[in-house]
Every structure is written in structure tokens, then in C-alpha cells.
């Protein structure tokens, strides 16, 4: 396909395509780049749109169905944009025992949303999660910029939501 027709119709910008192609030499098969590509696209659009799946497939020389099959297996890649910050509140054993379910309920109540939904202003998506591996902070929550919150109380959930509304802020930057 000539380059100009790609730029006219393509959804993925060249910078994103370049990022995806950079992963190809790491693996013996192009298909192995599916997950990295989904993560790259997801980070860019805050979702993986239907058309992007087709374009990933084109770059990796596999079928769109294969990309979709992988994408939909992981409950991780939404097809519509999520909020600027995605926060997971843990509901697995150690967090449940120390009040995680109540923290999730409180967070959603404060924002007027259900778990899995995004606030109307598009700032925050709140989801439940199975064990996040941060049980030393139980009951805990994790933002998708890497910030860990916990042990949570209802007051600390309120503070957490206020902080997160300011947008993503990586905890560890070097």
C-alpha cells in the first residue's frame, strides 16, 4: 500500500507504528508483539478502538480476528476511552478482610458511578480488581500511573480521589 494512502486512512499515527515495529526484533514471531502493541495503542488512545485492531494486525501480518481474540481474552483493553486515570480497588482476600469492598463501594458512591464506569468529566475510571499484589497496603488501590494507595479508610479514599482528579503522575520517575 502506498504510504500516502496509509496516512489518509490510518488511525494509528506513524509514531505509534514505529513504537510497535521496534518490538518485532525481540521475538521469533511477529504475533508475539500483539500484547505490546495493544498496550502501546491503549496508552495512546486510552482504549483499543476496533479499527486499531485491524491496523495492528496489518503491522504484525496476522488477521484482525487474531488480534481481537487476544485482546478480548484479557479483561484489560476497553474499546471506548477510559478516564485520564484508571484506578483499581482490590477485592481479593486480604483486602476484602480489611475492608476493600467497602472502599470500592465508597469510592463509587462518592463519584456517582458503578465499578467499571468513568466519571462524566472523563477524569476517573474506577474498577474492581482481583489481587493487585500490594497486600502489604491492604485494603489497597492502584492507579494506572503506578501510584499505590493504602491502607485505605473512607477518608483516605476521599483524599485519593481528590489527588487522582489532578491527573496522572508517575510515582517513580528517574
Amino acid at each position, binding site marked *: 500500500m502506498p504510504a500516502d494512502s496509509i496516512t489518509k486512512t490510518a488511525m494509528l499515527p506513524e509514531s505509534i507504528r514505529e513504537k510497535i515495529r521496534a518490538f518485532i526484533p525481540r521475538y521469533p514471531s511477529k504475533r508475539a*508483539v500483539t500484547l505490546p502493541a495493544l498496550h502501546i495503542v491503549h496508552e495512546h488512545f486510552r482504549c483499543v478502538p476496533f479499527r486499531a485492531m485491524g491496523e495492528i494486525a496489518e503491522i504484525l501480518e496476522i488477521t484482525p480476528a487474531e488480534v481481537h481474540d487476544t485482546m478480548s481474552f484479557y479483561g484489560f483493553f476497553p474499546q471506548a476511552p477510559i478516564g485520564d486515570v484508571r484506578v483499581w480497588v482490590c477485592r481479593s482476600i486480604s483486602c476484602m478482610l480489611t475492608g476493600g469492598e467497602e472502599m470500592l463501594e465508597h469510592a463509587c458512591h462518592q463519584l456517582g458511578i458503578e465499578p467499571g464506569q468513568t466519571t462524566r468529566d472523563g477524569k476517573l475510571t474506577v474498577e474492581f480488581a482481583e*489481587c493487585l499484589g500490594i497486600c502489604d497496603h491492604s485494603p489497597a488501590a492502584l492507579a494506572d500511573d503506578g501510584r499505590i494507595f493504602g491502607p485505605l479508610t473512607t477518608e483516605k479514599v476521599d483524599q485519593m480521589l481528590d489527588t487522582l482528579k489532578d491527573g496522572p503522575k508517575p510515582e517513580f520517575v528517574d
Partner: protein
Amino acid sequence: MAAFEPVLSRNWNVPDSRTLKVYESRGGYQAARKALTTMDPDQVVNLVKDSELRGRGGAGFPCGLKWSFLPKDRKETLMCINGDESEPATFNNRLLIEEDPHQFIEGILISCFATRASTAYVYLRFEYINGHRIMEKAIAEARAAGHLGKNIYGSGFDLDIWMHRGAAAYICGEETGLIESLEGKRGWPRIKPPFPAIEGAFRKPTVVNNVETLCCVPHIIERGADWFKSIGTPKSYGPKLYCVSGHVNKQTCVELPLGVTCRELIDVHGGGVWKGRKAKAAVPGGISMGLLSADELDTPLDFESLRKPGCLGLGTAAVTVIDDHTSIVDYLYNCARFFAHESCGQCTPCREGTNWLYKMVKRIKGGNGRIEDLDIMLHMANNLGIIPGTTICGLADGAAWPVKNGITKFRAEFEEYIRAHQNGPDPVTPLQERIAQGVTAVSSSSPLLPVLNGAGGPARLG
């Protein structure tokens, strides 16, 4: 016994423990240098075999033996490091990665040299976001200093390490599920044989090891197999990172000799049960291992001893304490919900069974349980998993164990709960009423229908 000296966590409280400079100043990469320049790969394999290092990921398979299954005439070997760590209450690998990434890289380097793998993939769960950043930086640092790349230490050995991020699926911690996921497919475990050592990732001989297992390797090279075997209990040698969380005063991860008792872990290292209460039960090593009752807390947490109280094994050695104010129904509800959520859907007994178990315990919790439900659940649990031979991987065994241990050890409490919580039949819904009256249900532009791409649908309510 001599005082125990932590090795895996020895750098955790040192300032800037993540940096190469600090790691090298504390003797880092000396073991790798020793292995690569003075030993041949088989000597390393034999040393690890002699140490009887058993895999720290859950199954406890001897690490050196796993390495020796690789075909002798292989052209290429791949190393996959399992950093998917998703077993509830487990976070030791996260700390190993975040606090001392170079110890981990040194372990990978030596293990790849031993198995002649020139490419290593670290499969890290997505949620370890800081861990991922720390590892990318540490790998770049190690490469710049010549610990990775071509002709390391002039030994002629080359190694590249690549980070590969998961996407929040518990099943990808199963070694063949991990391989499938690495290949870009859904994380469906493979039927074995062939085992990964013969035909693994990209159909090449592959070793899959846990993060903590590989972190033990530099210390075995440095101090020898006898040192390693001087720690722990028979058949369970070496140091182990124990996690303790839930109803304790101090949720923490602590390095101890294998075989510490659950009680010591709770009372000494976890600061005792919170709020001055007593422990009702404890999960010994991640929820898939089952449950210890209060009078079984003196069980040593090692690979062998946990079978006696009927647990599945040591698992990840992550203890969760449940206090005597907690209903055992809540515990089982949480476990059953987890496995129903995380079953990959490949094997029917697991896909259906985990959901049936969840629905039954949900009904009990909701107040419509029947005493015979307990027996039905036990019957299902006994027929679910690798052990009865009905599934490809062990996820279903993990789902069965909390049911088996929970109902067997706390039957009286379940029965009492069921008797005390009887709400009567569910209220009849309007739809059921219409159907009973023979009225055809009319559905017009139902808001419950799925909406493509979320456009205009209920996905972005605010």
C-alpha cells in the same frame, strides 16, 4: 542452629538499592562473574541440582532438575521468567523486583548461562507498573556496564533480557499459559507433554522459572550448595520470602528459613492478630492452597508439611490471617468468586465448575442456602482439577481446595449459617409474572442491549 542471615532481602533497606553502583559495591555481579569465567554451564546446573533448590512459584519443582530436562543437542534455548505473581496475598516478587532489580538480573544471567539461553523474557504482570519502570532502567544500566549484551565478561556468552507485560490475567502465571500469552495468544494452558523444556515458547526448548527462584541462584554460586542446604527443613532448603497480610497488626514480607510455622509468622513477624483478637483460620500460601484452622497453625510452612492438614502445598508462602470475627462464608465466597472470575474458560469442568461453586456459595451467603449444597460443593470440588484428571492446568485444583478445606474444617459453622439465614424463596420478578400470565414480553430499544464501542451506551455514565 546458627542465626539466620537474610540474603534475598539483604539490600532492601540500603539507600539506592536499585542502582547498579550500590549493588556492585555490596558484592553484586561477583557470582555471575565467577560462573561465567570459571565454571562451565553444566557445572552450574549440577551445583543448583546439589543445592536442591525448589521452585518458589508454587509447585516446588526442583529447579536444577527442570534445567536438566533440556535436550542435550538443542540449538537454542529460551528463558521465561514468571513475574505474573497473581496469587491472592502474594507480593514477594514485587519487592524483589522493586527493591533489588540487579540481584534479579544477576540471577537471570547465571541461569541463562547454565541453560545456554541467550534470550530471556521477563513476563511481568501489568499491575507492577513501578516494577516495570525499575526493571527497564536496571536492564539498561546492566547492559551499559557489560553485564548483559555480547561476550559478557569475555566468556563468549551473549544475553538479551526483554520485559514483556501481561494484561491482568491470573492464568498467565501458569507456565504454559504464560508461554501462549508471550506468543501473543490468549493465555490458555497447553496439554503436557510436551513439556516446555522440550517444546516451549515459539516451539523452542524453554525454561520457565519464578523470580524468587532465580534470585536464589547467585547466592548458591557464591556460598555453595552446602550453605543452602544448611537452611530450612529436610526437602525444603534455603531462605524463603514469606508474606503475611489480612487480620494482622503488621502486613509485611519477611525472609526466613523454609519451615517457619504459621503461628510464628503471625505472632512474631506479623505482630499478632489485629485488634487483640484470635485467629480463626489462616490461608497458608495463597488461596489455592486451602485453609488451616486455628488448631493447625503450628504447621511448618514448607513443601512437605502442609499436606498433613490437608492443604494443597506451600504455594507462594503468602499467609492471610482470618480473625474470629469473620464469617467463614465470606472467606469461601471471596475465594469462589476469584476463581470464577479467573478461570480461562478452556476446560469445561473449570469454566462451569468454578461458576457453579461461586453461585452456590453466593446463594448460601445471600440466605437461601441448603444443607445439601455443602455436599454438592464437596462433590464438585473432588472432581475438579488435574488431580482427578478433569482439567489441563491446576487452576481448578486451586478453586477446589478452599471448598474442600473450608467445608470440611468448618462444616458446623456453614450449617449454622445456613439455618440462621433463610430468606425464603426469591421474590417473583415482573418478567416471571408476565410469563406466568402468558403475556408475551415486548422489548423495544432495550437499554440493556450491548452498544458497539460504547457510543451513546451506558458505559460512560457520570
